[in-house]
Each structure stands twice: as C-alpha cells, then as structure tokens.
C-alpha cells in the first residue's frame, strides 16, 4: 500500500475520531460539572431551607403580674401560664368558646411561662405591675410569619385555621409581632417544641466526645505510627498489625457501634448515652486513619535526618523523638484534624450506644446522657413539624461550619508547614 493511500484512509477516519475525542472530553467535563452542580444544589438547598431558623417570631403582650397569683409561698412554682392566658383573653375579649380559647393560648410558646418566671425571680418588684413583654411565639405562628403556611390553602389543609390567622393579623396590625435573632437556638437543649429547641446540648455532647477521642487517638495513634514506622522489625506480627490496620480503616462505622454496644455497654457496664462511650467508639474508629496518616508523615522525613542524629551519638529513641517527630508533626496534626472532622460528622455508631435519646438537659460531664450534633440532626429530621425542617437545616449549617473550619485548618497547616526535601 502506498503512503498516499494510507494517508487517505487516515484522513477519512479523522473526522469521526475527532468527534469521538470531543464527545469524550465533553463527557469528562460534564461529569465534573455534575458533581459541582450537585454540591451547589445541596448547599443552597440546605441554606434556603435553614437560614430563616436564625430568626424567630415573638409577640408582645401586656402582662399584669397579678399579686393574687404570684404572692404564694414559692414564687418559682406560681401559675405563670395563667398570667399569659389571662393577658391573651384580655387582648382578644371576643373569644368565648372553650376550644377557641385553647387555640388562642396556643399562639404563645409553652416555654414563655419560664421566661416570665425568670423575670419575676430576678426582679420581684414586678409583681403588681403591668408590662408589655415580648414572648416567644408558637412555632405555627413562626411558620406563618415565615410564609411556610400557605394562606390560600383551604382551612382544613393548613396547620392554622382562619380564626387563628386573623388573630395573628390583628397582632401584626398592632405592631405586636416582631422577628428577632434566635439566640435560643444556640443556647438551648433539645425540646419537643420546635420554637424552643436548640443545639447547645448536642454541641456540648459532641465536644465532650471529641475531647475524649482526641485525648486517646492522638497519643496512641502517633505512638503506633512511630513504632510501626521507626522501630518495628519486619516479622509476622508487624505484618499482621499492618494488614489489620488497613482493614480496620475500611470496616463500616456501624460495626464499631456494635463493638461499643457489646463491649463497653454490656461487658464493662459503662453508662448508656454517655459521651464517654461515644468518645471511646469514635477513638477506635479514627485510630486507623490517624496511624496511617502518621506513618505517611514519618515516611516523608528523609533518612538523612535520622542518620545525622544517630551519627552524632543520639540513641534511636532520641533521633526519633528529638528530630524526626517534630518534622513529621505538621503532617500528623493534619491527619488528626481530618480524623477528628470525620468523627464529628459520624452518627451511625452513636445510634448503637443509645445516644439517640431525647435529652433536654445540657450535659455537664462525660458520663451525663447526651447526644451529638449529627444525631440531633437525625432526630430532628424525623420530627414531623415543619419548624423542625428549618432547624434541621440550620443545625446542618452549624455542623458544616465546624467541619469546614477543621478541614480548613488542616489544609492551612499542610500548606504552611509542608516541606519538600
């Protein structure tokens, strides 16, 4: 075959081949764009669902601190709810029917009475006065104000009936409804009432757990990495340890939960739902990751450093602890932070050891019953109220903020201290 003929064949196929090339390139690009688009979609959908949770509706009501109600033996247990009901009845004198009254009382959050109690306990001089006080609105009012409740729907299909909406409209017209920053979301524990549910309890639980995880995983992970990388002689045992660590890193997290349940709860009889057990389980889960990244960090320190130290008379241990370890530390810290970020976002093993309980109190120690941020998200996601959807998204935003901060620190550490030899 002559060259010309060959060239002809090649030329004839070129168009098709270039088209295929283009299509292939386009497929690759669209794969990347798909992932990025999903990322944007995920984050914006969570933001749009949740940003309103940082604001909350309050209604102002004239409250008469009735001495007849409050001057009792123990002012802390007086009937503050009655005060609110009385004031609401005064504000809407036209409401007479029993059922309607019940709806009327429902405009204000049930937690509002605690607010009044705290006010009176702080300032007993209030008794006998009439004050206009901003009280937390019920979550339904909040949802109406945030226009999640559609006024155009037929009455039976929405959570508030026409009458209730008319009351809210009246309050709005009188300037008695406002939207204010939702501090309670950051300072309260969990609650059955969406308007007073907060993430503080879960955040503290997560913090205690991570503290335990870090306190155990960092020294032990680094110790294991040092031993395996610097001291261990190649034999059957170290081989087993190595394979074992690699496998542990890929064991599903829920299996660690089973381990925690069977060993820590049933065998050692540690308390259920406690951050102590959660921290232990997460420690075992993150340990392989930290060991593996630690070993990589140690490997990246060139042998000349060790040899120089040994050459001027340092012992093996001194060479490692005085010279190699400081140089490998940034890499190890990066690995540890990434491991901690994973532990913070993990929830499956915590379900196994009872950290899914409904816990109102903010934990004050490692053996108090507690839950964790991701588990709180799981719990709220299961709640039917619309207001909890908003709070779930807001809690996700808080969790993601922590994760981004941690990962950002890791990236910063890596770029700042990474040395190429």
């Amino acid at each position, binding site marked *: 075959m002559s060259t010309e003929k060959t060239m002809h064949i090649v030329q004839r196929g070129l168009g098709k081949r270039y088209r295929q090339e283009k299509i292939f390139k386009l497929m690759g690009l669209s794969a990347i764009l798909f992932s990025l688009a999903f990322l944007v979609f995920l984050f914006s959908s969570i933001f749009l669902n949740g940003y309103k949770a940082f604001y909350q509706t309050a209604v102002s009501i004239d409250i008469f601190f009735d001495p007849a109600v409050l001057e009792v033996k123990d002012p802390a247990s007086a009937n503050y709810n009655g005060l609110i009901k009385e004031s609401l009845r005064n504000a809407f004198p036209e409401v007479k029917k029993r059922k309607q009254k019940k709806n009327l009382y429902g405009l204000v959050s049930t937690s509002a009475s605690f607010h009044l109690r705290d006010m009176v306990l702080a300032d007993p001089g209030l008794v006998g006065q009439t004050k206009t006080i901003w009280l937390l609105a019920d979550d339904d009012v909040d949802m109406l104000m945030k226009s999640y409740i559609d006024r155009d729907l037929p009455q039976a299909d929405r959570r508030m009936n026409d009458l209730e909406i008319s009351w809210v409209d009246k309050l709005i017209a009188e300037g008695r409804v406002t939207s204010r920053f939702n501090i309670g979301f950051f300072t309260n524990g969990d609650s059955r009432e969406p308007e007073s549910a907060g993430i503080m309890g879960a955040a503290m639980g997560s913090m205690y757990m991570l503290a335990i995880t870090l306190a155990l995983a960092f020294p032990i992970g680094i*110790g294991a990495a040092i031993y395996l990388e610097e001291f261990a002689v190649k034999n059957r045992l170290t081989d087993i340890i190595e394979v074992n660590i690699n496998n542990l890193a890929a064991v599903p997290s829920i*299996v660690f939960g089973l381990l925690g349940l069977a060993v820590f709860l049933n065998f050692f009889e540690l308390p259920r739902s406690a951050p102590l057990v959660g921290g232990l389980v997460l420690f075992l889960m993150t340990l392989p990751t930290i060991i593996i990244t630690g070993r990589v960090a140690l490997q990246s320190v060139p042998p000349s450093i060790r040899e120089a130290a040994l050459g001027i008379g340092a012992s093996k241990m001194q060479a490692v602890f005085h010279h190699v370890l400081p140089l490998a530390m940034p890499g190890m810290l990066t690995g540890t932070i990434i491991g901690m970020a994973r532990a913070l976002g993990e929830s499956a093993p915590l379900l196994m050891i009872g950290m899914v309980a409904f816990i109102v109190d903010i934990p004050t120690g490692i053996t108090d019953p507690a839950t964790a941020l991701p588990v709180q998200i799981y719990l709220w996601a299961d709640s039917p109220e619309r207001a909890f959807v908003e709070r779930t998204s807001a809690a996700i935003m808080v969790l993601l903020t922590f994760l981004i901060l941690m990962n950002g620190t890791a990236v910063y550490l890596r770029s700042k201290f990474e040395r190429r030899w």
Partner: protein
Amino acid sequence: MSNLLLVTILLGFVSFGYVYGRKYALAAGKKGGDIHKLHSRPAYHGMLIALWCGLPTLLILFVWQLIEPSIITSMIISSLPDTFSSLTPGPRGLILNDIRNLAQGLHFGSTVDPELLHASDYYLQLQQTGKNIKSASVIVIGIAALLVGFRHFSPGLRARNHVERIVRYFLICCSLIAIFTTIGIILSVLFEAIRFFQKIPLSEFLFGLTWSPQTSIRADQVAASGEFGAIPVFAGTMLISAIAMAVATPIGLLSAIYLSEYASKRMRAVAKPLIEILAGVPTVVYGFFAALVVAPFIRDAGASIGLQVSSESALAAGLIMGIMIIPFIMSISDDVINAVPQSLRDGSYGLGATKSETVKNVIIPAALPGIVGGILLAVSRAIGETMIVVMAAGLSANLTANPLQAVTTVTVQIVTLLVGDQEFDSAKTLAAFALGLLLFIVTLILNILALYIVRTYREEYE
C-alpha cells in the same frame, strides 16, 4: 477522696519525682566533680523516677476501679441471709439494685425491709472503706516508689536505657490496640451471633426468603414467631449499592480522567478540592437531603409520567449514596491514572492516537487493577453506609429488583433492631449482631480482595 483529687495528687508526685530526680542527679554529678560520670543526662534520671512512681500507682488505681464493684457485690451477697443467695440471678439482681438505690437515698415507698436497710448500710460502709483503702494504698505506694527511686539512684544508673525501654513498651502497646480492636469486633459480634444461631438455624438465616423480625412478648400473640431470612435484606442492600455504583463509577472515573488528562492546572487545583468536599459532608446530611428533597422529587416525577414510586424508593437512597461515593472513586482513580508513566502516553501520541484513544486503549488498561481495587473498596463503603439508608430507605424487607419500590438494607435493620431498649436474650436483638457479622465478613472480603487485586496485577514501570 475523689478519684480526680487522687489523680491530681499522683500527678503532683510524678512531677515532684521528675523535678527533684533531675536536680538530684545534677547535684550528684557536680559533687562527683565530673558531670560526665553520670551515665545518662539528668533529665532521664528524673523521668525514670517519675515513671517509677507514676506507673504502678496509676495501674493500681485503674485495676481497683475495675474490680471494686464486683468485690463489693459479692461481699454484700455473702452478708445477706441464705434465702437471698439461693435466688436465681434475675431476682437477685433486682434486690442488689434495691440495695444500691437505698444506699443512694433513692427510695419511693413507705416500708423498707429491715434486711435491705441493713444491707444498704453495709454497702455504704464497704464503699467508704474501699475508698479509704484505695486512697491510702495509692498514696503510700506512691511515696514509697519515690523513695525507692531516689535510693536506687547512682551516677552509673543506666537511666536512659530504662526510660527508653518503657517508652518502647508503650509504643508497642499503642500498635497492639488496633489488633485488640479487631479481636474485640470479631468476638463481640461473633459471640452474640452464635447465640442467635442457637435460636435460629444458620440455614434459615442465610437462605430464608422472609424477614420479619417480630418476636412476641406473650406466646399467644399474633406474629408470635419472627422470621429471620436474610435474603431480602441482602437483596435490598445489593440493589441500593448497585444503583450507587452505577452513579458513582462512571462519573467518578470520567471526572478523574478529565482532571488528570484534560484539565488545566488551575482548573484541577479548583475542581478537585471542591469535589472532595462531597466526601467530607456527613452522611446524615445526605440522608436528610435524600429524604427531604430527592425522594419526593422522584416520587412526583414518577407520578407525572404515571409510575407508582414509593416515597422511600431504593432509587433515591442509591442516587444520593452514589454521589457520596463519587469523590472516593475519583481520588483513587486519579492517583492510579497519575501513576501511569508519561512515556506510555507519549508512545501512544507518537503513533497518532488522539487523547481519548490513548485514555481508552493505553491508560485505562494500565490503571485497571488500581481502578478495580478502588471500585471494590467503594462497594464495601456502599454496603456499610448507614445514615443515608436509615433516613431515606424503607424498613420493610421486600424481595424486589425494582428500584422504584422501598427496600431495606442490612444497616437499616441493625439500626432499627438495636435503637431503643434491648433485651439481650431475644432473637430480635441478637439478629442485629448476626447481620453485623455478615456485614463485617462481606466488607472484609471485599477489602482483602481489593488489596490483593491491586498488589497482584499492579504493573511495575521503571
């Protein structure tokens, strides 16, 4: 004396041992005229004394903490009248609980059995004695160890070698923890699973076609005997994992190819970390998103073209799980593709191949073992993934291959069986451990297989 105070005192001893041990050694060296007569640097002498004092006392404290409750319990039991010790463990546990509650001042009732009252007094007394003995022994031993440490000192003492040996043992213990974790996992899961298989035969579990883990409290209830055939549960897991892999494999692989072969350096530097964010998003977030956005969307989309789609369809969970796995596959494939030497590409271009032809005919075959290994690891992740399926997949075990129906998975079943109150003698609770054992075995096999493939078929280019 509380444990916290005790540990603080011990730490005080330890730091005293270090500081003064170091000073002592330094002074001894100076007195001898030549500091080089000391075998080790003074700090090592200090460290040795500190370890001498700290290790035994902390060990005693720890062991005491572990065995104290059982000793007290057995002493209480032996102090009770014979009628109690002849009871079966169940009622005996209740009585012991009563005693503990009484001792803590928790009693809700008018009359108290004088025997119990007496026992609870005895309990309190024992606890107090135990505390005293513990504190006294720890403090005395701590001081004694310090004294022995100082007495033991001599300039020729090989303090550094001793310290280094202790550190070395500590490091070995650290690396053994990983082994103990594995043993712990295997034993705990295996132990409960064996108890399960004593109630339900293994063959029924492995080959049964119905999964309805309801066990009755009374014998005459409806659905008195649960059925524990794991096939539908595994089929559901496979279905969701298959959907996930069908999403993740092409997208992850194509992304890796584009990033390593086509993308500019800048685009790579931006796009890769952005996609890897997807791997850092907690799975509970994916689960929430799948249940709140994706599942209703698929259901409505299906309804608009006349398809009956369950609101907990396997499709929604699988899709989102696939997206979660994309960065995993992308990273591994990217590493493997980058490891293919440039000379192979150059050779292919030199023969006139286009980029895509080079990728398809040269790079992918060369990187195939690594990619397959990565995919296997990804499958093991998909099988073990919990939160997405717990939140977005169903609970009822349907044996179906239709992605529009609700199916359940192994992890969902483990969670539903174990969340809440458990009694550790019912087949229902133990079934979770049997499922856990299977999950562990399957993921372990996948991991080992992946490592084996990568190791055996890796091409060495040098």
